[in-house]
């Protein structure tokens, strides 16, 4: 998750891990991915900030998965989230793929001055491509019964200095 051995080009980094104890449903209603939020002030000498977030997803309740994800920002905790231009993307596995996976999202952003919050918005394309986050099924008994396993969300922001 982290840059190691920072020197002149890797100026600063903030990292946090969020423990999840339940699944987060991904529906057609947009929501912040639990644990994806980070407040960060770039180093004054930085040219870019690399935002990274890692999380688990699974297809259920639907066999198809089609998520829309956006990097969003705000200055103050109470502000509404704003989309960052051209920093939205899609993850999809259709045709009854029944997919799951551990996503490692990293998005390079131009630096800014002062403190800012960053996070990931997520929603499903339509009601037939919904899914869930943070949950693994460890046996054959179905979700929410038997042996569940919840996956931490990892997030970091790193100041980079490009030549």
């Amino acid at each position, binding site marked *: 998750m982290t840059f190691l051995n920072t020197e002149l080009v890797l100026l600063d980094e903030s990292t946090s891990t969020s423990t999840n104890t339940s699944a987060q449903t991904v529906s057609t209603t947009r929501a912040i991915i639990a644990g994806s939020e980070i407040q960060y002030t770039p180093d004054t000498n930085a040219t870019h900030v690399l935002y990274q977030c890692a999380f688990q997803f699974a297809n259920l309740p639907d066999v198809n998965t089609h998520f829309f994800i956006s990097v969003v920002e705000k200055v103050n905790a109470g502000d509404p989230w704003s989309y960052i231009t*051209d920093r939205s*993307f899609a993850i999809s596995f259709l045709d009854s793929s029944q997919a799951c996976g551990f996503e490692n999202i990293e998005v390079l952003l131009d630096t800014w001055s002062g403190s800012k919050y960053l996070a990931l918005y997520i929603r499903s394309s339509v009601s037939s491509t919904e899914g869930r986050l943070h949950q693994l099924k460890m046996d054959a008994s179905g979700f929410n019964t038997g042996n569940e396993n919840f996956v931490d969300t990892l997030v970091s922001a790193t100041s980079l200095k490009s030549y």
Partner: protein
Amino acid sequence: MTFISQKGQIRNLYCSVNTTALKTTYSQTQLYVVGSQVDYTPPSDCQFVEYRYQAQASFSPDINDLLQFSLKKDDTVSLNPETQITSMTEITGANSGWGGNQNSQAALINLRFTLPAWQGTRRLALGCQAYANYLRCTLHWTDQFRQDDVDAVQATTNSFRFSPHLIIYSY
């Protein structure tokens, strides 16, 4: 996810976000990947160069899809990748594929190549093509993405795109 710098030395880092990339469909003809070009000189005491490129990929226009990426070099630093990508030299082992059968998938592709360091300046760029003309894919376009939860019909516009980025450094 992790940047691991051998011996604690990440050097000559260059990174950029390309804001001009447009929806591009790749067929069997190899094309340049926008934002992947860099002229890079490793420090003389470094052993490796790490090249990373990220872009949005989508199965569109075909349900089955298979993209092939090749990192290419030009030690003359004179070729224009936009028009001469096929004249650049493929770097052995620096290839990657993405796709699937009946998968209709979209993803953020994170390409990462570790190259032996070289002397002097080398031009690097990515070429991309589909394995076959029935396995075409699209880069930089967020398939039917919308920034509100109201009008799905409007979301098919080509202007909904994802800006790719490039990161390169030595160690």
